[in-house]
């Protein structure tokens, strides 16, 4: 019974990691940038969602509002921060991104206060009994919501003209451009979708803990970086599998090796171990 519960916990965390990490891996696949500031967008999404929910009382309204706003912020970050330094060595964009993320966290602290915000009337907190486990509605919504969003994303990528242009650009930007794909538009779209997903993930996390605070992006962001590396940088399927694996490993790890390593250290111990055996990640493309 303990195993089933741990597995379920792992799955819930895994789904959350997945929607954070997918945005990161999309950006990496297209631009070869480790987009640390992605976690800032995650926090922004949580705050916007929480504020709209508190103001209107409707989570269903808060989700799209927050996702769309954060999507546009993501596009702005690409336009003003990354585009001008794309031709520089990779560490330049990485360090710039870390700087941007730290600055964003501080700005959130200044605007929303250092102690964080809570939902006045937190939605989805009712308990449900499944297989003898009592889960909160929010746990179930996270799992099904993530699967649904990733399903839509995969449909978008496989079946629409837009998606085909997108995948072509990831594979070979020059060739795609010579076939008439606007690389610039694809990049904007990429940032929009990735950031919107991060916003939704942020709202989910704030629902789980009924709390949004300036530093909430820290741990998921570094962990999402570990996940996209585990999944083979830029590989979406690999990222999804790695997310769920990491969620489950952490859930079991905190019980069995929790005396020696804390939760974050378990994630990174996994990462280092895998990289030593397979330097290109678990599911590298080449």
């Amino acid at each position, binding site marked *: 019974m303990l195993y089933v519960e741990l597995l379920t916990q792992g799955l819930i965390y895994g789904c959350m990691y997945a929607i954070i990490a997918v945005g990161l891996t999309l950006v*990496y696949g297209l631009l*070869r940038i*480790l987009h640390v500031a992605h976690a800032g967008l995650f926090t922004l999404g949580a705050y916007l969602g929480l504020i709209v929910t508190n103001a209107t009382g409707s989570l269903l309204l808060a989700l799209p509002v927050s996702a769309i706003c954060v999507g546009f912020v993501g596009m702005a970050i690409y336009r003003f*921060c990354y585009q*001008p*330094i794309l031709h*520089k*060595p*990779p*560490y*330049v*964009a*990485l*360090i*710039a991104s*870390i*700087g*941007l*993320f*730290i*600055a*964003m*966290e*501080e*700005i959130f602290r*200044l605007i929303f206060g250092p102690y964080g915000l809570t939902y006045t009337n937190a939605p989805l907190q009712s308990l449900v009994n499944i297989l003898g486990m009592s889960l909160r509605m929010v746990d179930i919504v996270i799992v099904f919501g993530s699967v649904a969003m990733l399903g839509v994303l995969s449909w978008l990528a496989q079946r629409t003209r837009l998606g085909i242009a997108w995948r072509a650009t990831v594979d070979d930007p020059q060739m795609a451009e010579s076939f008439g794909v606007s690389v610039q538009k694809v990049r904007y779209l990429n940032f929009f979708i990735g950031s919107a997903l991060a916003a939704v993930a942020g709202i989910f996390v704030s629902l789980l803990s009924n709390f949004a605070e300036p530093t909430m992006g*820290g741990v998921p962001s*570094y962990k999402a*970086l*570990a996940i996209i*590396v585990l999944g083979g*940088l830029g590989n979406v399927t690999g990222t999804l599998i790695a997310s769920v694996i990491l969620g489950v490993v952490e859930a079991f790890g905190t019980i069995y090796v*929790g*005396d*020696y*390593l*804390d*939760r*974050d*250290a*378990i*994630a*990174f*111990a996994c*990462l*280092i171990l895998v*990289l*030593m055996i397979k*330097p*290109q*990640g678990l599911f590298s493309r080449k």
Partner: protein
Amino acid sequence: MGIYELSLATIVCINIIFALGLNLITGYCGQISLGHAAFFGTGAYVVALMAKAGLPFPVNLAGAMLVAGAIGIIVGVASLRVRHDFLAITTMGVGFLFLGIVRQQDSVLGGEMGLSGIPSMGLGKPGFLLLVLVVAALCTAFSVYIKKSWMGFAFDAVATDEDTARLLTVNVPAYKLTAFALGTAMAGLAGGLYCYFTRFIMPDDFGFITSISVLSMVAVGGIGSVPGVIIGTMLLTLLPEMSEFLSDYKLLFYGTLLFAVMRFAPDGLAGVGGSIFGKLKGKGGLA
């Protein structure tokens, strides 16, 4: 100088040693490290344990360098397997792993609460500053010497183009390991001195933010340039102390500065200085 100025000068010197260590790895050899604080922390904890056991300080500092350098070689071995972005994430992971282990070791390392009651060196504040100043000067001289030596050229070759360097029979793995060993030993030394300075250490002193701060010092000063790194370190350590406004918003200041430097002048202050001097003299480069 009052107590406050003495402390400030001491911390600047310690940070210079710390930053020069990272500069050896990232600046000279081109291997990015986002977990340099782990080695700083290793040095600090080694010194704390040895000093509490009653050993004299030269032995303790040597121990800090050895242990940090040895762990650095292990991480260096990892750097041979992974490159660029993968290496950045791996070293970041090393930082989190270090924190995770220290936090859970309540009995030996003091866990969350850290270690306190570390015996002093017995030199007094001015004496300690003098010691730190001498060590920082030695590290600076060592850095400049390495840069000019054959090893410096080999590091440069590895940083610029690893594959071509290998083709030219440069022993790339050996040089990478050397860079890691030297750079992390310096971080360990800085950590040991820091431990003697504060005489109280806790895990949060050596977190990701510390790794990023030291990277900012190197990046703002100019990656690979010794004078640049020293100026960058002084600037980033002293500016937040000079005005109350900056110290309240220290992280906002760091973050914005880091972003702005990378966005507008990726070669840092040394690059800006170099291009101005270059225009004046008609030739390039400060360092």
